């Protein structure tokens, strides 16, 4: 999984913007075994941060106990329709990605 794993919905209402993010990711814990009994190496998102106008509005550090396809919802003050959010994720393997979402 390289690019395009994030689905985000951001909605501005009454001076606040509510953000819902779902990342398509298996969040492999490293405890699971495959059919041959070999451990599947851990592969999960460690950090997901959301920036609005260059200012960080949320940073989530996740462990292996976050479910598959992690979901994150929060609200921040400010934000207007048409603005852009930058969502950056970092995997434990070192992979990173930045995706953007528009406030609606």
């Amino acid at each position, binding site marked *: 999984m390289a690019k395009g794993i994030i689905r985000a919905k951001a909605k501005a209402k009454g001076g606040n913007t509510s953000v819902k993010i779902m990342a398509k990711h298996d*969040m492999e814990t490293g405890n699971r075994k495959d059919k041959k009994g070999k451990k599947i190496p851990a592969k999960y998102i460690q950090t997901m*941060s959301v920036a609005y106008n260059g200012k960080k509005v949320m*940073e989530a550090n996740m462990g*292996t106990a976050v479910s598959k396809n992690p*979901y994150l919802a929060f*609200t921040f*003050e400010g934000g207007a329709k048409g603005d852009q959010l930058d969502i950056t994720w970092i995997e434990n393997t070192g992979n*990173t990605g930045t995706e953007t979402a528009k406030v609606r």
Partner: protein
Amino acid sequence: MISRRSVLKAVFTGGAVAGLGVLMPSIALAAWNKAAFETDNQDTAMGALFDGAPSASAEVNLKAPDIAENGAVVPVTISSSMAGVKTIAVFVEGNPNPLAAQFAIPAGTKAEVSCRIRMGKTSAVTAVVETASGLFSASKEVKVTIGGCGG
């Protein structure tokens, strides 16, 4: 005069700095705490993350199901009416790694986050809210029935 060497040097230094920025955008708030995330003991995880133990508070609101039919996806919402919330952390006591997630809340962001966590078995879920004035927690027992009749 700009020589080829100085141009290359500038490009490399700039690239290195930009690379660092991409790798470590989290440094300003809270870096991913390896010791806290990888320990199998909840107290150790809390010790690695905070100084001191949290005290139970009614102002920390942990919303989680009483019975989770599927332990792989347990929705939780943590909110707090307290001012100046800096971080919110979620622990699942019975998991192999109790620390599930930690959220840094910058000023201007509401102290309310929702996420979905995994639970290996029935256990207590604890939310810890860190404010300028200390650590506060709320916890709740969540029953996990995997594959059963769903409670």
